[in-house]
């Protein structure tokens, strides 16, 4: 090979292809193009929709949230709301209550049934199979209406009759159980719990280290719980000593309210820039080898530019897109600090928590379960048990699948090295089963939350049902639908974030 040949070869290798053949450039251009297309399409559709609505004299406005609502809710934190916004808030709280309680209950029930189906006890495993196959093959709406109808057959509430001051009261008005009331000293007591958590974590770590050093059983988790319980017990009587904490929040709140919007805007801008800088730093740190920084590919450069542009976009939105954001933050921040400050104080010397049994009161023509107990109305019970029983059947199958997905050889290997059953489950089987169970379990949580909207069929005052009342009275259909969508999106994203957090932790454990 001659010298010229070599020179040509080198030149060809180092030459970049034209940009329309450069894989990296094409990829990024496609991304940016798609983004612009989506933004433009959304912009076009919204302006068109607004224009058409305007032509018909309909305005998209959310001021209906602060006008009065002429009807009562069946249940919730506020059954006689002053405004539509307050009513929707009460509905949202009802939905969240059912969803949160439902997720906990469906998980417990589902795990029990799933493990039960694997049981070597013939009757238990058969019963679990029958449960799963029956429940998951009947539409949820049918089950909810069925439970509602069943509750209707229960006896009436009577003032002087029934196990009303007992632990569980069932009637055609629904069910009541004893309820934990947050009492006077709760928030001051929380400080003790927080401190107990910190100290407990410290003790737990120390005990884990001692186990590592000596090999003896040191029960780290149990000691953590013991420390927490001890702090809780001391705090139960000693919590008034923290009555001065409210003053601190008052002080911070005063300082916060005296901020000018410009200061907030500057701080938030700096925070956005700092976040971008932090991300870029971390990104570069990943590319750093002992020999020095790796050569950045075009891909990497695009990413860094994108992070910077993203931060600038956030700042632009804050300054131009929504100039009122800063004062809104100041106002709500001050309100929030004021509320927190109010939770502490001289008057708050009572016990932190109180448990009350269900009671009965007669305000109108008929007696009803009173405010002392935790009440589920007929509709609430129908929705709650409907989604719990239904989702539990799916969770049971997920749990069963996850446990079966761990090969038998793992059990045998654990047995062969002499691990006891509990240690084997804790250290070998469950960590592997969790990896399989977690993602579909998250899906079931999402399903459960969204399925609570079937409450509308039985008149439970959830977010959807209240929204329906609101738009029937105000005519603001589009606005209410947009709120529904935002609300369920927020719920789903929250659940996704939590489940993904655990997912990632599990993944790191594996590889």
């Amino acid at each position: 090979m001659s010298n010229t040949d070599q020179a040509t070869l080198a030149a060809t290798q180092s030459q970049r292809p034209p940009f329309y053949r450069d894989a990296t450039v094409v990829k990024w251009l496609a991304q940016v193009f798609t983004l612009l297309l989506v933004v433009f399409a959304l912009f076009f559709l919204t302006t068109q929709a607004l224009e058409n609505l305007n032509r018909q004299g309909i305005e998209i406005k959310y001021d209906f949230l602060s006008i009065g609502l002429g009807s009562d809710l069946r249940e919730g934190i506020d059954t006689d709301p002053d405004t539509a916004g307050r009513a929707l808030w009460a509905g949202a709280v009802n939905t969240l209550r059912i969803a949160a309680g439902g997720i906990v209950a469906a998980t417990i029930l589902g795990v029990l049934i799933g493990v039960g189906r694997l049981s070597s006890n013939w009757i238990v495993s058969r019963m679990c199979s029958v449960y799963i196959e029956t429940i998951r093959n009947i539409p949820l709406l049918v089950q909810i209406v069925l439970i509602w109808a069943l509750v209707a057959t229960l006896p009436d509430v009577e003032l002087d009759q029934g196990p009303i001051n007992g632990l569980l009261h069932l009637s055609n008005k629904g069910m009541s159980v004893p309820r934990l009331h947050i009492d006077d000293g709760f928030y001051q007591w929380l400080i003790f719990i927080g401190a107990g958590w910190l100290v407990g974590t410290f003790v737990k770590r120390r005990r884990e280290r001692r186990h590592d050093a000596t090999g003896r059983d040191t029960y780290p988790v149990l000691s953590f719980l013991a420390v927490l319980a001890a702090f809780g017990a001391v705090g139960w009587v000693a919590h008034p000593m923290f009555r001065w904490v409210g003053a601190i929040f008052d002080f911070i709140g005063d300082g916060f309210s005296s901020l000018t919007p410009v200061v907030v805007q500057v701080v938030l801008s700096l925070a956005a820039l700092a976040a971008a800088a932090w991300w870029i730093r971390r990104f570069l740190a990943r590319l750093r080898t002992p020999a020095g920084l790796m050569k950045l590919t075009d891909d990497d450069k695009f990413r860094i530019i994108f992070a910077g542009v993203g931060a600038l976009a956030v700042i632009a939105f804050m300054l131009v897109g929504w100039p009122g954001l800063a004062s809104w933050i100041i106002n709500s921040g001050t309100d929030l600090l004021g509320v927190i400050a109010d939770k502490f104080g001289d008057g708050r010397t009572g016990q932190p928590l109180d448990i009350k049994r269900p009671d009965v009161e007669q305000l109108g023509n008929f007696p009803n379960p009173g405010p002392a107990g935790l009440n589920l109305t007929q509709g609430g019970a129908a929705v709650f048990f409907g989604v719990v029983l239904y989702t539990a059947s799916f969770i049971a199958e997920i749990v069963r699948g996850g446990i079966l997905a761990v090969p038998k050889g793992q059990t045998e290997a654990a047995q062969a090295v002499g691990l006891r059953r509990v240690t084997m489950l804790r250290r070998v089987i469950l960590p592997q089963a969790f990896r399989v169970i977690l993602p579909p379990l998250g899906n079931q949580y999402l399903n459960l939350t969204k399925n609570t909207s079937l409450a509308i069929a039985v008149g439970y005052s959830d977010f959807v049902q209240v929204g329906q009342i609101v738009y029937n009275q105000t005519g603001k259909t589009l606005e209410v639908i947009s709120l529904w969508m935002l609300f369920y999106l927020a719920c789903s994203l929250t659940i996704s974030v939590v489940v993904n957090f655990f997912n990632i932790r599990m993944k790191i454990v594996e590889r």
Partner: protein
Amino acid sequence: MSVSDATTALTEELAARDDMIVCEGVNKWFGDFQALDGITAIIKEREVVVVLGPSGSGKSTWIRCINRLEAHQEGRIVVDGVELTNDLRNIEKIRSEVGMVFQQFNLFPHLTVEDNVTLAPIWVRKKPKGEAEELARSLLERVGIPEQAEKYPGQLSGGQQQRVAIARALAMEPRIMLFDEPTSVIKEVLDVMKELALSGMTMMVVTHEMGFAREVADRVIFMEDGQIVETGTPEHFFTDPREERTKLFLSQIL
């Protein structure tokens, strides 16, 4: 010294040692199928026994009965003076004295190599973590993969996984090692097994690896249809088998 002289000498020498594994009339059925049919054998301390036989002959079932991964239905199995019964304490005692290496390795995929090895010493033997890690490092050194300690089983080759499995079993400091058809018998694994045999470990090896049987085994047991057909020293077994079934098997496999 003739083959028969050697056999006699070995037999005498063995007779003087302690019994490690005693099986008497062990029977086991899977449904209608009889997997083990009157297995009677005594394995002495420091003896290396290779179990040969066509597939489905019950070799694996037998050694899996010895640490109770399968339960035998009739007969007696006594391991180092402890009889295998339904008594959980006996099962635990035997399992912590008998190491087992599986055909499919069965390493714990969610733990690093080192954690695979230290798991049992920490949670069964209650060893301090530092001590267990030291033990793990020396064992990984012994099986020739000290540099893989931080990796996960999925990142290792078959032969490396096999050696981790051996290290994991050795971490319990067992008196007996059972090998259930180690498939990836590359030279390094074979060397580790030979070294183990020379160090005086009592070993039972189910294998198709004739080289190992010839070189290392003190005794070869040939099984077919759940029965022990023939037993003998490797010299005797490979050169002058008595039974027709053994001759047939050897003619097929050699």
